[in-house]
């Protein structure tokens, strides 16, 4: 023992020790190299060979479907042999290599043991402490630890039992499902759903019946279900038949959620990757906009979403991601907030930016592929309004608000149809179309009624009919039933104007703060305050409040509707409200 102890001081000179250490290093290097080679070959097996077989498959398909081409056939044959040889060689390598890996691992372990045999330390018990106290303490500590462990385990299990039913839907099956189906639903179907921000044509008019007028968050009355939404976002739900879509994001993740409308289960979560970190540093994120202010759009087959960093992602209804586009982080003073809209297979993005002229654009992407179909430069600075697609005299038009222009584009090819100088400031409320007019908002200043050119034959000149002043909103969009038009500003002042001449019929302080835009259901206005109070006002020339309902959460997203149901996205939950029979 003692001689070994002394020899420890001479270890570096001991040739046996040196031999042990060098074999340790050599075996470690060998081991690592084999491991690395295995990993590389494994990668090739999984990625390269997979890609190659897909390529070969594609070539075979081309050969079978196009005119006969002997050179292509020859190429296929050669590639086939080449790829197959590589693949088999890789399999062999992996099999033998993993044997080598284990073998070198064993050698490595052996050399460690060898080296270690030079570093022995005789046992050296420390002074004996008070055993009685130590053992009593140890027993007590174990009791507490086991209790704590049991408690942690039990609460984890309990927590899971609440989560258990919400398993995300797997997206198995063939990868290509979109090709044989049409890429969009019809205009009629779009109007039978709630496909974009503020519903069909972005008008904020609910076409459905049996919408509840009474509910209560505290007692759960008429709350069909309530489910948590993982990541925050100011965007509103969009609805297609029995699916509800919304998005959420924080500094690390950007996600699209699809919920089952029947019971609120999360069907899938789609991920949209972040823009490069360097770009994201330039983002403006304010509390009022956040990372996910833009409402998603759905066209009956796909759902697309855009986030504050200019990343656009598209998914099919089973949650398979179709494509992702990076438009670049938009330069927006308060953060990007325009919602998407969609016309047939065209995904319309109002991408207004500040600082340099020529940066603001209206972009149409092919929703099936993510390719740009067309792009129009816009002579406006950053805005926070959303484009809307409306039908006007048989023509589909995209309406946009910016400062100072209200511009209409042809929804098919993006041709500019007309423009009118009637706006200004930091425009956020979205224009609406009603009674053959367009109502657009110059925040804090005026509500403008515009008569668009009636037919393409006309001189394509829009006409400003009137401007009405009052408590003009800065965030919430107007709503109209064709006879009257209402606005509500953030401070809670509800204004009612006559569509004909813009005369103000009433102005009523609702004593609440609003960020969500109002929706007209039949002859009732639904106004959702940030505190979760939904105020119901009769759509009439005089003010008459006919009810109010409370939910215990804050709300900034505009409500979405489906037959018999309201979907409300709060700061933490998604609610479904339905009359209980």
């Amino acid at each position, binding site marked *: 023992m003692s001689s070994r102890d002394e020899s420890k001081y001479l270890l570096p000179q001991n040739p046996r020790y040196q031999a042990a250490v060098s074999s340790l290093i050599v075996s470690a290097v060998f081991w690592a190299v084999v491991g690395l080679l295995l990993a590389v070959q494994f990668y090739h*097996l999984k990625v390269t060979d997979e890609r190659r*077989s897909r390529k*070969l*498959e594609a*070539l*075979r398909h081309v*050969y*079978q479907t196009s005119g*006969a081409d002997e050179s*292509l*056939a020859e190429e*296929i*044959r050669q590639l*086939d*042999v080449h790829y*197959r040889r590589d*693949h088999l060689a890789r*399999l062999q390598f*992996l*099999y033998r290599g993993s044997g080598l890996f284990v073998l070198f691992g064993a050698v490595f372990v052996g050399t460690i043991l060898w080296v270690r045999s030079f570093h022995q330390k005789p046992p050296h018990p420390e002074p004996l402490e008070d055993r009685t106290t130590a053992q009593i303490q140890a027993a007590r500590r174990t009791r507490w630890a086991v209790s704590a462990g049991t408690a942690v385990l039990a609460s984890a299990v309990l927590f899971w039992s609440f989560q258990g039913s919400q398993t995300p839907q797997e997206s198995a099956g063939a990868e290509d499902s979109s090709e044989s189906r049409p890429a969009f639903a019809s205009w009629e179907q779009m109007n039978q759903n709630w496909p974009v921000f503020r519903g069909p044509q972005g008008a904020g008019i609910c076409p459905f019946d049996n919408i509840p007028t009474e509910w209560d968050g505290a007692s759960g009355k008429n709350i069909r279900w309530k489910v948590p939404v993982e990541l925050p976002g100011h965007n509103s739900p969009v609805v297609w038949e029995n699916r509800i879509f919304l998005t959420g994001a924080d500094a690390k993740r950007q996600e699209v959620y699809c919920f089952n409308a029947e019971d609120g289960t999360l069907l899938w979560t789609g991920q949209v990757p972040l823009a490069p970190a360097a770009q994201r540093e330039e983002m403006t994120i304010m509390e009022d906009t956040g990372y996910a202010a833009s409402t998603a759009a759905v066209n009956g087959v796909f759902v697309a979403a855009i986030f504050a960093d200019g990343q656009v992602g598209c998914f099919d209804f089973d949650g398979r991601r179709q494509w992702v586009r990076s438009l670049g982080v938009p330069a927006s003073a308060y953060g990007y907030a325009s919602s998407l809209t969609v016309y047939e297979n065209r995904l319309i993005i109002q991408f207004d930016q500040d600082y340099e002229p020529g940066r603001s654009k209206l972009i149409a992407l092919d929703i099936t592929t993510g390719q740009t179909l067309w792009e129009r430069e816009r002579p406006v600075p950053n805005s926070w309004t959303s484009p809307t697609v409306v039908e006007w005299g048989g023509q589909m038009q995209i309406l946009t608000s910016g400062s100072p222009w209200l511009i209409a584009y042809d929804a098919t090819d993006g041709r500019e149809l007309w423009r009118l100088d009637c706006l200004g400031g930091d425009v956020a409320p979205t224009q609406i179309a009603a009674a053959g007019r367009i109502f657009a908002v110059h925040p804090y200043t005026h509500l403008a009624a515009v008569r668009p050119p009636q037919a393409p034959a006309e001189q394509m000149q829009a006409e400003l009919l009137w401007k009405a002043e009052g408590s003009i909103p800065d965030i919430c969009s107007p709503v109209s039933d064709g006879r009257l038009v209402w606005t509500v500003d953030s401070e809670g002042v509800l204004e009612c104007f006559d569509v004909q001449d813009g005369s103000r019929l009433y102005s009523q302080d609702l004593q609440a703060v609003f960020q969500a835009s109002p929706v007209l259901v039949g002859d009732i206005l639904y106004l959702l305050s940030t505190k979760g109070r939904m105020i119901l006002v009769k759509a009439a020339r005089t003010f008459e409040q006919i009810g109010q309902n409370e939910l215990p959460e804050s709300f900034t997203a505009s409500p979405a509707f489906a037959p018999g149901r309201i979907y409300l996205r709060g700061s933490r939950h998604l609610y479904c409200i339905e009359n209980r029979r």
Partner: protein
Amino acid sequence: MNPPPSELLSRRRFLKDGLWTVSLAAAGAAVAALASRSRAKEWVWQIDPYKCIGCGRCATHCVLSESAVKCVHAFEMCGYCDLCTGYFSPDPKALQTGAEHQLCPTGAIRRRFIEEPYFEFTIDESRCIGCGKCVVGCAAFGNGSLFLQIRHDRCLNCNECAIGRVCPSEAIVRVPASSPYLLKVRNP
């Protein structure tokens, strides 16, 4: 009050011995019970060819890097077709053996002319990866003479078959090792 230590010790010893005897008896009973339930019968995994839908997972999910599942050919069921739909991709340009006409991703099927109008198709197992593409082709149009089987010279007979776990039609079943194949035709 307290019994003397020696007595305590012996009581403890008695308890302990008793416990040991009881547990040994229990273990004995368990042995007897298990032995009476168990038989000199081993199980192996096999694919029920009438349940297999040819999804391709046999090629990707076996624990072996080269799957233990291979395609086998029941020659007695084969129509010896010239246009074999298990061999050729749909609508082949020519009925020739070039890789461009073949369905098999590894070219594991050999086609041999026998006599007008018959061709023989045999599986080269060293190439076959068990994807079942030919199985689908043959079953969809032809007689279904090609089907997948677990080859027991390769199968490690894992306690839980990794392919069986992901088989969409639960076609992988335990069969007695004495009759380890589920063939579509009885072997002579």
